[in-house]
Structures are given as structure tokens and as C-alpha cells.
């Protein structure tokens, strides 16, 4: 080690033991504490992806703020961490969901779904009768149940675990003929009657036990004072080795498939036509017998599970006529809406900025302040006010039209006028922003360039077209792209103003004239259609992401060209 480097490290050491160092260490410590707490929780929930990201973020933070060598990355780290959690993770997770069948009926994990199936009971006539139940316990902590009521004779027996072999074991000392429900025996063969709090204390054990009444019937604890008679037992037996499910009620064996089990040889009249069939599943019926019938088509309470199904959702989106039709329409309007909004707001904003640039104008600052007002009022308020103003029967605008003898317009009630209304309101909301940035950008254009153009004989229009506008676009183009991206996903405006409406008739999914992709997706995901289809909705979101990313990339390329013009 040479002299200079040692000096260097000594000064560094001095710096790092100062007050700032302690403060920084303390703050990093606080952050670490929260990260560890979070990590424990995510580990408990088995959210491994989030956990991995959390640890990565932790490493990054500790390295950046504790290692002397990482000084340069300190400014970047908070941004990187936030981007990881709020941009990268949602994008990755949405992409993942778009390749799954996550939807109504397929919400559970595979283990949870099979557990549910294993609990299902055979439904027969007498089964399900509710019997009164008393709980007894002996010195060895064995539990015995006494059931009575219904048509059956009172019975007292020792319980077994739910997964043990069925074997009735009655308590010999119990005499059914002497049983009086009003005064049950306090003690039988060393079994003591439990009551109240003591029964509740056994609740978690009681959930897992079964009382066998005879080789073919049993009683399952239903509440703390009643048991349900089960004749025939459980319906399904899951064979983990072959991944098949045996249906004891019908004697069929069903194979595990995509998201659920599929059974062959099902009589056609048992099959219910229900949604949730994925793109490549078909029920084949010949001569009244059907093959490949998913369990939920037999009984909708037999839930399936969620799993990765590959590009099914994308295939569905692009080939299924009932989704593709409205999707194309919505996409087209979405692009028109995005470009139109940027164009209108920019035109109005620029026009006003140019007008107010004129220094001969009086009260310029007053006008400027007034033009900012729409921007300063919270958007959702303005939108709701506009919705009221545009109301067909009670809105102020139509009342005014009526008052001066003009025909009234159903602003939000029919397709074309609703689109015009959307543009109108969005222009109102968006022009102050464009006005602000144009005012700023105009001042940065060198006056002598305009002078020179004038001297060369260009009129005002030509000056604007050939000099002002190109120079203005250099600095505002990135903001226009941002504005396009924002409007492309302007859910708030559409949701509050028209909620996508007026509705379009004749499509198989709910869709309206002013629906943009994000509001259309919201309806699909949040259940206005057939339950919630998170998988399909995610696929649309991914497509939106692709559209926006491509447009942005292309637009930035365009900006570069403009900059080259400026450089020349």
C-alpha cells in the first residue's frame, strides 16, 4: 500500500466516523428493520418473488449507503428501489398473471382446491340430518360424543381421527333406553360430560374427528352442540401418485388437467353449460355420453385451481370473436382519443400562449392566472361537474340551448356526441398544462431567428410554421409523448364522465362507445362480465404496455430528428 492511498483512506475514515456517518447508519438501520419485518411476513405468506425483491432492495440500500466505494450510486438508489417495487414488479407480475387461468372458479392454489374436493360429501337423501351432540372426555384425554335426536337411537362412542380407518367403538356403559335429553348422564365409563367453555376448548380437536355410528354411517361435528349425519362418507379420493381423482358417487376416475379434473363417460344431461372453459378445452359428446368434462360443469361448487396455461389468454383475445370484435373497436377509439386529446389541448394551449406572448396586451398576468384555474381544480371534481352540465334532461347546457330555441343535444346518450363530449371535457382539463409548457418554451426561442425570417420576407404564418413550431417541438415533444401516454390510460376521465357508455348493443362483452382499453379491461377484471377474469385482463394490460412502449420509442426517435434540425 502506498503512502497516498493510506492518506486517502485515513481522511475517509475521519469523514465516516463523523456525525453524518452515525446519522446515515441509524437511518439505514431503521430501513433494515422494516425490511426484516417485511421479509418475515412475506416469508410466512410464501410470497417468494416479493421476498427476493425485498432482499435485493435491502442489499442495494446497504451497499449504496455503507460502502465508501458506492458513493456515486447513492443518488440513484432511492429511484431504483422505488422503480423495482412500483414499476418492474407490477409489470412482471401482470405478465405472469396473463399466462395463467386466474379467474372466477380458478382462484385457489392447487393444494387448496384438492383439499376442498377431498372434503366434499356424497349427497344422498337421508344424509345431512342434524343431530344434537354432547361432548365427553376421559382421564386419558380421549373424546367421546353422544348424539341424539332425529329418528335414530341415541348413540355414544369414542371418536376417531378423520384420516383413520372407519371403526365404530361404542361406549359399553351407555344405555340408550335410559337416556333423557333433559338430564344427560354426567359420567359414563370414566368419560366426563364437558360443558360451555370446556367444549370450546376442544373446538380445534373436534373439527378433525369423526364418530362412526355403524360401518356405513358416521357423524361429523357441525357446531359445538350438533353433529351432521353422514351416510356414505366422502365423495372423492385423490390419488397423488397418478394425479387422479376417484369419484365414489359415480365410480368415475377423473384425470388432472388444466386447472381442474376432467372426467370421461358423463351422461349428457348431467353436464351443465358453464363458462370458464379455456380456449383449447372442448366437451365431446357422442350418443348421450360426454368426454373431457371438467368437474365444475358437473357441480359448480367443485372449484378448480389457478395455474400457468401458456398463451391461452392472448389466443383468446386475438381469435375469440366475442372478445376480438369489441377489442379492435376499443383499441381504435383509444388511439384516436389519445392522439386527439394531445392535439386539441396542445393546439389550444399553444394558441393561448402565442396570444399572450404579445407584450402590447394589457392584464397579461390576469389572463395567465385565469387560464391556470382548470388545472388547479381537482380533475375528478371538474369531470363530475361537466357530467352534470351535459346531462340530457337536467343539464345546464341543454337548458340554455332550449332557452334560446336551439335543439337540445343528448351529449352523453349517443355514441358520436358522447365522443365529442369526452374530447370537450378533456380539452378543458388539459389545455392549461399545454399553455404552461408552451409559454415557457416560447421564451427560450431566440428572438433574432424570428427577426431574420421576417427580414427574409416570411409572413406570420410562415414564421410560425417554419421557425417557431419546429423549435417549440424540440423542447415540448417529450412532454407531448408523456401526455399521450397519460391520455391513453386516462381511466379517471372515462370512468367518471361516461363510464364507457353509451353502451353498444350486439357485442358479447359489455362495451361502450367511449370505452378505452383500460376501462374495458376494468370491466372484464372487476366482474361486470362473467365473474372476474384476471388472466384475460392482464393480457390486455400487457398489450397496452406494448402499445405505449412502442409509441414512446418511436416518438423519441422522432424527437431526435427534430434535435438534429435544431443543431443545424
Amino acid at each position, binding site marked *: 500500500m502506498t503512502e497516498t492511498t493510506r492518506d486517502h483512506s485515513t481522511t475517509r475514515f475521519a469523514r465516516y466516523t463523523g456525525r453524518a456517518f452515525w446519522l446515515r*447508519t*441509524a437511518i439505514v*438501520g431503521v430501513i*433494515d*428493520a422494516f425490511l*426484516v*419485518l417485511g421479509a*418475515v411476513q412475506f416469508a410466512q*405468506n410464501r410470497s417468494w418473488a416479493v421476498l427476493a425483491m425485498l432482499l435485493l432492495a435491502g442489499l442495494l440500500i446497504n451497499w449504496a449507503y455503507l*460502502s465508501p466505494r458506492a458513493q456515486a450510486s447513492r443518488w440513484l438508489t432511492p429511484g431504483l428501489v422505488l422503480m423495482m417495487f412500483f414499476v418492474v414488479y407490477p409489470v412482471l407480475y401482470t405478465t405472469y398473471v396473463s399466462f395463467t387461468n386466474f379467474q*372466477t*372458479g380458478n*382462484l*385457489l*392454489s392447487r393444494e387448496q382446491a384438492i383439499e376442498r374436493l377431498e372434503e366434499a360429501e356424497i*349427497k344422498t337423501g337421508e344424509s*345431512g*340430518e*342434524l343431530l344434537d351432540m354432547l361432548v365427553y372426555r376421559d382421564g386419558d*384425554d380421549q373424546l367421546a360424543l353422544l348424539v341424539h335426536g332425529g329418528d335414530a337411537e341415541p348413540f355414544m362412542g369414542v371418536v376417531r381421527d378423520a384420516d383413520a380407518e372407519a371403526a365404530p367403538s361404542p361406549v359399553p356403559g351407555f344405555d340408550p333406553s335410559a337416556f333423557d335429553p333433559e338430564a344427560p348422564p354426567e359420567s359414563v365409563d370414566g368419560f366426563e360430560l364437558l360443558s360451555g*367453555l*370446556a367444549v*370450546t*376448548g*376442544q*373446538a*380445534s380437536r*373436534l373439527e378433525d374427528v369423526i364418530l362412526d355410528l355403524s360401518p356405513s354411517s358416521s357423524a361429523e361435528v357441525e*357446531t*359445538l352442540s*350438533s353433529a351432521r349425519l353422514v351416510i356414505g362418507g366422502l365423495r372423492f379420493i385423490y390419488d397423488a401418485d397418478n394425479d387422479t381423482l376417484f369419484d365414489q358417487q359415480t365410480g368415475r376416475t377423473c384425470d388432472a388437467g388444466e386447472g381442474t379434473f376432467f372426467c370421461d363417460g358423463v351422461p349428457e344431461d348431467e353436464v*351443465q*353449460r*358453464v*363458462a370458464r*372453459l379455456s380456449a383449447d378445452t372442448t366437451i365431446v359428446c357422442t350418443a348421450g355420453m360426454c368426454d373431457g368434462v371438467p368437474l*365444475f360443469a358437473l357441480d*359448480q*361448487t367443485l372449484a378448480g385451481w389457478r395455474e400457468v396455461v401458456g398463451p391461452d389468454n392472448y389466443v383468446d383475445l386475438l381469435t375469440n370473436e*366475442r372478445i376480438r370484435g369489441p377489442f379492435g373497436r376499443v383499441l381504435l377509439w383509444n388511439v384516436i382519443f389519445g392522439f386527439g386529446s394531445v392535439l386539441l389541448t396542445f393546439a389550444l394551449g399553444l394558441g393561448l400562449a402565442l396570444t399572450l406572448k404579445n407584450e402590447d396586451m394589457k392584464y397579461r398576468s390576469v389572463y395567465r392566472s385565469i387560464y391556470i384555474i382548470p388545472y388547479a381544480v381537482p380533475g375528478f371534481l371538474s369531470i363530475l361537474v361537466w357530467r352534470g352540465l351535459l346531462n*340530457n*334532461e337536467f343539464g345546464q347546457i341543454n337548458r340554455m340551448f332550449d332557452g334560446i330555441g336551439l335543439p337540445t343535444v*343528448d351529449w352523453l*346518450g*349517443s355514441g358520436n356526441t358522447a365522443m365529442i363530449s369526452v374530447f370537450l371535457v378533456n380539452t378543458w382539463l388539459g389545455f392549461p398544462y399545454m399553455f404552461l409548457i408552451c409559454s415557457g418554451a416560447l421564451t427560450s426561442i431566440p428572438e433574432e431567428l424570428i427577426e431574420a425570417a421576417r427580414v427574409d420576407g416570411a409572413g406570420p404564418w410562415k414564421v410560425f410554421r417554419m421557425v417557431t413550431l419546429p423549435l417549440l417541438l424540440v423542447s415540448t415533444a417529450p412532454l407531448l409523448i408523456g401526455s399521450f401516454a397519460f391520455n391513453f390510460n386516462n381511466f379517471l376521465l372515462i370512468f367518471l364522465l361516461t363510464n364507457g*357508455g*353509451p*353502451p*353498444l*348493443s*350486439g357485442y*358479447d*362483452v*359489455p362495451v361502450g362507445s367511449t370505452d378505452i382499453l383500460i376501462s374495458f379491461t376494468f370491466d372484464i377484471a*372487476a*366482474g*361486470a*362480465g*362473467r*365473474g372476474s377474469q384476471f388472466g384475460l385482463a392482464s393480457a390486455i394490460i400487457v398489450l397496452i404496455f406494448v402499445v405505449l412502449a412502442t409509441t414512446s420509442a418511436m416518438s423519441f426517435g422522432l424527437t431526435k430528428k427534430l434535435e438534429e434540425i435544431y443543431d443545424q
Partner: protein
Amino acid sequence: MKLMQKRLALALLTVLALLAAACGSDTATDETAADDATTTTEAAAEETTTTEAMEEEDDAMEEEDDSSMEEEDDAMAETTSLTIWADENRVESIQAIAPAFTEATGVEVVVDLVPFGDIREQVVTAGPAGEGPDIFAGAHDWTGELAANGVIAPIDVSSISDSFLQVSLNGFNFEGDNYAVPNAVESVAMYQNLDLVSETPSTWDEMIAACEAAAVENCVVVPGGGDGGDAYHNYPFVSAFGGYIFEFDESTGFDASVVGLDNAETVQGVQFLADQTTAGIIPSTNYDGAKNLWLEGNAAFWVTGPWELGGVREQTTVANWSVVPVPAFGDTPAQPFVGAQGFFLSAFSENALIAQSFLQDFIATDETMTAFHAADPRPSAWKAVEAEGDDVAAFVEAAATGIPMPNIPQMGSVWGPLGDNVLLVRNGEIEPEAAMTAAAEAIRAAVAG
């Protein structure tokens, strides 16, 4: 490198100190924290002492607990508790009975207020993740979807079924099993402005005549026009002449494969609605438009449900009003949808037994049901609770003639197409027959997948 180590040690120290402070109550985490501390660095010794001291405190408390529950089984050592999600209407009544349950069983009850609109969505995601409630409040039309998702478990109410209105139990029955303890029923009726029209109409024609005689500008306001589709409030028209959404069979329930929206009876009903709109009897109003017109005294009749009773009692400028069932369209009484409200049992509950006994022994009682009714004017599903006031009694009457709203999951695909197409008919954009054909086709396509 030494420097880095020292800093890491310091940072770890801070972490441990904070962890110890944050998890003071959680013994398990403390132990791991303490273990880490002893192995990491000597400097942490101080910290460890504090953590140990806290642990001792915890142990002492546990011993106290143990001694007080000597007679109880080990199972009780880990505290059992019930989590209940209730909406704003029911949360207070549940909170009121929680202490009594804790006293009787020793089980702690945690009652959370969750807005009604959020419950359905949240149980579907929170349940499978193991964070959901044991019991939650909800409406009967959720039954099919929640059962199909495996997030609710059947509840046996056969021993007390006679105490409930049958229509409420029908609402929560899906594929032969009951899934909730009902507490209220609801259906639409008409709020009548007695200052504008004084006599009670028994048929639709009588109503129109009364409106004309009194020269009322807006005779009857119905949500679902203007810019907000609403299949629910317009259903009396759909069913007016025998129309229906899904075929219903007493033994097998609703059959999603038979959609009746484009049959002649339904089209006739919707045509009737279109005629009323054209004639100006029913103005083009969405939900809020209808509400405001009536509340301000500008409409004679308003078709909506008992959930508006509280607001009407407090807000309306109408001096004299009453509630009457929707009048008969022809010979038969109008048939609005009947819905039910109740409490579901989560399939993910780890204390299903205790939750069941809470539902049966504490919710299904006269006092609790009376409390629900006092807090929310919807007619009670519990027969022993008497309707509070004539207006509630009128809603009970309306519910008696109504038909149960389907609770099958496919109902989710009905609201959009039906509401939208009825809206288009009311706005005069499309003919009734074309509209109902489009609605029926959309529903068939959605049901078949």
C-alpha cells in the same frame, strides 16, 4: 474492510434494537432476534439483555394466563379468535353481541368494518391467502360465485329454518346447500308522493290516470335511463308479462343454459316499458336523477328499494308520502327481484366450529335480528321481528310477490348486457326486440364460455 464490518455491526445493532421494540408482544420473533444477537457481535450484549428481560416479562404473563385457565385444555393456550367483517349497517349490532360470546365461550371476537362494496372482492383474494375473516356479511347474489370459487362453506340451518322467511333461505341456496344465515330481505317497491297523488293505485293504468288527473309532470321515475343502465330496477317490466332471465325449476334451481330474454313475453314487457318512456310517463333518469326528482317533490312515484328509507325519512321535502308495491301491469301483480342479506362462513376459517356456533346461537336470535332491523330499515328475514312502520310493511308485501333473484355465478354476465340494452331501449336508440335478442345472445355466449 474493517471499517465495513464495523458499520455492518452498527447497522445490525440498530436493526435488532428496533426489532425488539417492534415485536415486544411476539415471543417467537423475540427469541430469534435474541439468538441472532448473541451470535453476531459482542457489542450486542447490551441489546440481548434488554430482549431477554422482555422475554421474561412475556413468560411471566403466559404463566399467569396458564394458571387462570388451568382447567382448560392445551388447545386453548394459543388464543382462538373469530374475525368478522361487517358492513356499516351491521357492524354495530355485531359489536354489541361480541362481548357476550367471549364471555360464554372464551373466544375473542374481532369485528372489522369493511365497506359493503369491498367485501366481495376482498374475501376472494384474502381468503385463499389465509388473511380473510371467519364470518362476513354479504348479499345472496354473491352465493354462486363465492361457492364456485370455494371461498364459502355450507351452513346447516335446518334446525332453525322455520324461523326465517323461506324466500331468504332460497336466496342463499346454491346447488342444494345453504350458505348463509340471512338477516334481511329486499325488493323494489314505489315511494308515493301523497301531496301530488293521494289515492293508491292497484294497477298501472290507474296510476297513469291518477297522474294525469293531478297533472303531474313526472309520473313515475325509474333508475336505468339517461346515462346509467340498471337491470335490477327495470326487472318488474321484464317480468311483467311472464318474461324471465334464466329458466327456474323448483327442484334443480336456475338453468343457465335456458335464457328467456328474447322470448315473446319478455319482449312484450320491454315494449311496454318503451311505450311508457315514449309517452312521457317514465322520464329518462339514471339512479341519482330519479332520486333527486322524487326527493324534491317533482315526481309522483319512485321505483326503488328499502335501502333508501333512511335517507327519505331524513331528507325529503315531501310532507306526505308512503310506500306501495309496484302496481300490477295486467292481471298478475308485478314481480320485482327479491334479494337477501346475510352472513357467510368462510371456507378458510380455522375455527369453523366456533364460527358456526356464533352464527346459530348469537346471530340467529331475536335480539340480534331486532338490532339489525333497527339499524337498517330493510325488512327482516327473521319472522319474529316485526316490521317497523307501514313503509317497511309495504316492502315486506312487495317481497312476498317478488321472485328470487338468481344467485348462480352466471348472473354476473347478465347485469351488463341487460342493463345496457334496456337503457338503449329507454333512450329510444334501439327497438325492444332487437335489444332483447342482443342481450340474450350476449348472455348465452358468456355462459357457454
